[in-house]
């Protein structure tokens, strides 16, 4: 059993009591809600005559269903409009702060909470969305929950949870040029598999992690869930504090020193005990792309797709399914694979630094003819900051569409979808069958820079070669 880890410390602090069934009742410091997983939860508490226990610790925005071209109300899609109306009404009724379209702070829930300084070290954070693990980048314990649990948090600000084990993933070395946090996490998931994290929280640590910016750390923790780990985190350090300082909801000047001291005390102890540990060399990681239908089916740009025989027997059935669905040949090269759609955005890679990295590749270039490319900033603030730097102009001149913030084609609960068997180069997090809105659509996950490189050539290629010529 783990001890002395950040996970243990934060867990103990938020433990309300032990429940008869053996679960722990855990206090939730910050509850994030959105339009998809909350309406049924509000109905459920109202049916029982209950109120929201801590409306001030509950924050709402709208992200999954918003269109990214025309956001004027009412939305063209009446179901989407109904969902937003329901959320607005629920927030108003229960006194919950709601960041709506045009507020200047609307965006993907996992983008806006950090940028508003709401996400802080040492918190427990829950949201009805599996990518809540993102907030672990700050040294918070953050996890996705289902609608019944959203109901429980609304009603009691607590959850019945079972404590996870802790696996430390120690990353040695440093990422080389043209290799990003996205490549790192795709590489980790490829090595450990998509189910290895079930029952675990992942602590990402080591020299390569310490060098990452907060936005890169968010990309890492965001995809912990794709490795099966409901929660991923990174110990807070000076990078974390620098990011937080001065943000609207960060501790004020008077409280800052006490806050930092407390945050520092939360980091896993030198002698902390982990249930498991793996060590990975980050310096040898190359740009990584998924070829299959799970985020664990990834390879480096330099490699060929696996042959069935080369795979572990347990992996063969899903690999065969993936080859058939993706219409790809075992042993063929991923480099040179033509793409139809290029998507930059999502809670994984829709932040300012992601857009900057892609714009650096696209500057002065044009995307290949026949490729549809669009960029969806993760929030209104990301969009504004990017526009201030002229990134929108770089994207537009290259042939990308510059869209309005939302989840967009990461999950296609809005008008942004693949059609037919189109292949997308996507900076999002899931390549599941049908994920991007077409039941035969195909998704290749990669970093925003790699998406930009794919857009220019019209095919998957190694972005490092473009960096050299720039």
């Amino acid at each position, binding site marked *: 059993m783990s001890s002395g880890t950040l996970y243990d410390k934060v867990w103990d602090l938020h433990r309300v009591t032990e429940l*008869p069934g053996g*679960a722990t009742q855990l206090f939730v410091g910050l509850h994030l809600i959105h339009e998809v997983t909350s309406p049924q939860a509000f109905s459920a508490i109202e049916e029982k005559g209950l109120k929201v226990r801590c409306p001030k610790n509950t924050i709402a925005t709208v992200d999954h269903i918003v269109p990214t071209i025309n956001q004027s109300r009412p939305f063209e899609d009446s*179901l989407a409009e109904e969902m937003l109306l329901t959320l607005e009404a629920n927030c108003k009724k229960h006194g919950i702060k709601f960041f709506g379209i045009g507020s200047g702070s609307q965006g993907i829930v996992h983008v806006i909470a950090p940028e508003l300084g709401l996400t802080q070290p040492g918190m427990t954070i829950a949201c009805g969305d599996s990518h809540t693990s993102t907030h672990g980048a700050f040294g918070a314990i953050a996890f996705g929950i289902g609608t019944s*649990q959203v109901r429980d948090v609304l009603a*009691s600000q607590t959850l019945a949870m079972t404590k996870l084990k802790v696996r430390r993933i120690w990353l040695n070395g440093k990422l080389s040029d043209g290799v990003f946090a996205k490549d790192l996490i795709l590489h980790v998931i490829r090595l450990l598999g998509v189910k290895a994290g079930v029952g675990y929280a992942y602590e990402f640590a080591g020299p390569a992690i310490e060098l990452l910016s907060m936005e890169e750390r968010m990309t890492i923790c965001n995809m912990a869930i794709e490795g*099966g780990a409901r929660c991923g985190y990174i110990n807070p350090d000076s990078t974390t504090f620098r990011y937080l300082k001065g943000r609207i909801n960060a501790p004020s000047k008077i409280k800052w020193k006490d806050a930092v001291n*407390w945050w520092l005390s939360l980091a896993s102890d030198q002698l902390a005990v982990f249930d498991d540990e793996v060590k990975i060399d980050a310096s040898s990681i190359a740009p990584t792309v998924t070829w299959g239908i799970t985020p664990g089916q990834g390879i480096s740009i330099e490699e060929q797709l696996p042959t069935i025989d080369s795979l572990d027997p347990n992996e063969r059935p*899903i690999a065969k399914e993936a080859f058939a669905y993706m219409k790809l040949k075992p042993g063929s090269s991923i480099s040179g694979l033509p793409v139809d759609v290029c998507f930059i955005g999502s809670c994984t890679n829709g932040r300012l630094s992601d857009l900057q990295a892609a714009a650096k590749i696209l500057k002065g270039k044009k995307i290949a003819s026949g490729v549809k490319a669009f960029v969806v900033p993760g929030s209104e603030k990301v969009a504004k900051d990017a526009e201030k730097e002229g990134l929108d102009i770089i994207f537009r001149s290259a042939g990308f569409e510059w869209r309005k913030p939302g989840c967009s084609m990461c999950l296609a609960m809005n008008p942004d979808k693949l059609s037919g068997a189109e292949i997308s180069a996507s900076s999002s997090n899931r390549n599941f069958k049908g994920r991007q809105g077409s*039941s*035969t659509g195909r998704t290749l996950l990669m970093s925003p820079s790699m998406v930009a490189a794919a857009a220019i050539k019209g095919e998957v290629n190694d972005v490092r070669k473009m960096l050299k010529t720039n």
Partner: protein
Amino acid sequence: MNPEPSFPLGIITQIRGKCIVMRGSDIDTDRIIPARFLKCVSFQALGEAVFADDRTQLKGEHPFDLSKNQNASILIVNENFGCGSSREHAPQALLRWGIRAIIGQSFAEIFYGNCLALGIPCVTTTEADILQIQNTINNDSNENWSLNLTELKLKNPYRSWDIKMNQGPLEMLISGNWDITSQLLNNDKKITDTIKKVPYLNNFIPIK
């Protein structure tokens, strides 16, 4: 789909009925219920949409469309079932189609918890037993199966298999305490006590 299914309530010790087999590992919640069906403010209509895209592709040959599987209540799966998104719409869709219990090698964590909150036990057994159960269902009349949580057995009229479930969730189901909201609310004073000791809700005043 089951006509007017009655939803789980109170003490859950036994689920009887037909089994339905979904082969394959890592079946994610996007496949169980594609995202476009999440556009709703109630779960009511989800039953018909379960595995919608997979079913369209298999043109009537999908397990959830085969006539022999209609009215089945026990779903047999392989490894890491329910991975991906936290959408409770996935177990809700299975529930509303008629599923009342799931047996597999392993389950994704959020999915498992979502099922428990709806009173759907997710129980596990070995790969070898799953294979044997799947094959038995194919050869069997597939009418009289029962999953017994107190005995931890899956039975048909001819034989039985051992199944496993973690003690906590198991006790919640067999004691009828799986609808957790009221239990949580009972500890309101302790919740208030916790709020008072969390530094970030108390101006970060150092703990003495």
